[in-house]
């Protein structure tokens, strides 16, 4: 796919911005959770932890691991070295999109803690997954590759 209409060389910078995306995101999470909840073998606590883990895993993969764009952007490969999170709003920090995506795992974590009744083993697992997706979102770590992970 070739992109670049409307003067936007790389749509990855903007498509998460729309409120419709946010609503879809929340609805998607809810449906995912309901599906997991309806699996008979899983307890309520387990269902919440699994939801949280899946959510954080997808953040890790799609926002913080995969680099570049799925289409052919017109930026002569500028985004080839950037993760999707780094491309959002052309790298501007503390934008609304970033705040939403920053809040999502934290709110989900708090909910999970509540519904797992603060069970220690659930808590540890969820906290670790939270840290993994929160750390790369920090403005201080913008375009920083700790220990050269995922550098090229």
């Amino acid at each position, binding site marked *: 796919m070739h992109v670049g209409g409307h003067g936007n060389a790389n749509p990855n910078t903007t498509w998460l911005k729309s409120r419709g995306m946010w609503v879809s995101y929340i609805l998607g999470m809810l449906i995912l959770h309901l599906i997991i909840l309806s699996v008979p073998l899983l307890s309520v606590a387990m269902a919440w932890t699994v939801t949280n883990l899946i959510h954080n895993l997808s953040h890790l993969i799609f926002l913080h691991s995969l680099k570049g764009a799925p289409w052919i952007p017109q930026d002569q490969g500028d985004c*080839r070295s950037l993760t999707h999170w780094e491309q959002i709003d052309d790298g501007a920090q*503390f934008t609304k999109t970033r705040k939403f995506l920053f809040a999502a795992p934290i709110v989900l974590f708090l909910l999970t803690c509540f519904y797992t009744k603060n069970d220690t083993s659930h808590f540890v697992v969820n906290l670790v997954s939270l840290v993994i997706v929160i750390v790369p979102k920090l403005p201080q770590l913008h375009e920083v590759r700790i220990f050269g992970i995922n550098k090229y």
Partner: protein
Amino acid sequence: MGSYWLPTSINGFLGDIKDASLLHFVLEGFLVAWLIWFIFRKSYKSHHRHSLSKEEEDKIISEWTPEPLVKSTPQDHPALKPHVVTGKAGHYIDVDGKPCLNLATHNYLSFVDKPQVEECAIQSIRKYGVGSCGPRGFYGTVDVHLELEEKLAKFMGMEEACVYAYGFSTVASAIPAYAKRNDIIFVDEQVNFAIQKGLDASRSRICYFKHNDVEDLEKLMLEFEAEAGKNPRKAKVTRRFLVIEGIYMNTGKICPLPALLELAHRFKCRTILDENVSFGTLGETGRGVTEFYNINRADVDLIVGSMEWALGSIGGFCVGSSFIVEHQRLSGLGYCFSASLPPLLTSAAMASLEEIEKNPELITVLHKQCQLVHDALANLSEFGYSMSGDIQSPVKHLYLTNPPQDAEKHRSLLHSISQYCIKNGVAIIPASYLDHMEARPRTPSLRITVNVDLTPAEVEAASKVLQQASSEFSLS
């Protein structure tokens, strides 16, 4: 289970929280506070990634000198006395109403004024009108475009071809369609201006090797290899390209293709071969430098050709495997965002191509003429000229053996020689460069082009005129 989403009683709610340890409280409280802090921060834009370093900044500032909007023009500036060319720029050209032997324009096979070609173009105007009225992807594709692409691909024996509307933009779009930032391009230092613009647009790292010097290229590639060895992970995502011309427009020399391809293969480079001069002129049947060296054309990743010189039309084309060429239909900027080649010029190019296919002897004749001109120009060495260009090349450059030291004087001397030649019935011009934009300084020269219709007498006459010019300007 009571209610899943909400605790059934306040006790149940408190019970959960009461059970939580202090650590949980602190951590969750901290998270909430952090989130609130994050949400209320003002947004800011981080520094641009490709900002200039201090030295680069200083260099640009120190290099900048303000220029007047309009410079005063010296009274003897050539632009004040332009020549007027009337009629077709065929084998002979009318300069200021006087017919001159044309050794200036690129019309190697004389297709510019061939009646069959003209007839095809006229027929095409009757059928399609004059313009195509849109880019290829946006209502600008006419059946003749597809036909020409098919013919070109078949002629070159490759899977697919794509036609551009302008020869210059062909290679200038093809290079940045593949080479991106962080990639590396090895390129001959004498490549033409269109290639240089393509290199600029690619944003890649450019490594110039000495003209036609395979050893220098190998040295550069080895250096890169050593550098890559230090950081294999980076090297793994750095694509390497080799960009060369079949016959160099700027020197008239043929590239040592077999050796270059061997190196490209050894160092895993993708090769882009610009055949703007060599297409239709080199090889037994005009299929370019690959035929000249008898090389399997599939070994070259992408061949870029021009239809403006040998075919006497306008536009350019790329041929290669479908996988490679197809990519340009969506990322070749000159392909996507220019109106397509007017159908009449497409038909004209097709007619010329058919002519080449039908009469491969034409190429043999051209080779004879190249030889003829080559010998004639080589004999001028005692008159203060030195020639550059291979025997089979239809483009030759004449340099002055003892040029004036001052570059401006050098250029104006060549201009005077050219004026003298035109006055004496031979249209010869200096090669013009945008000197401040060229990657490497180019030596000023007279560029002679060979035409298939030249006769020995004409070549002799042209050589005479150059000899007279030599004594007129005391060159030797």
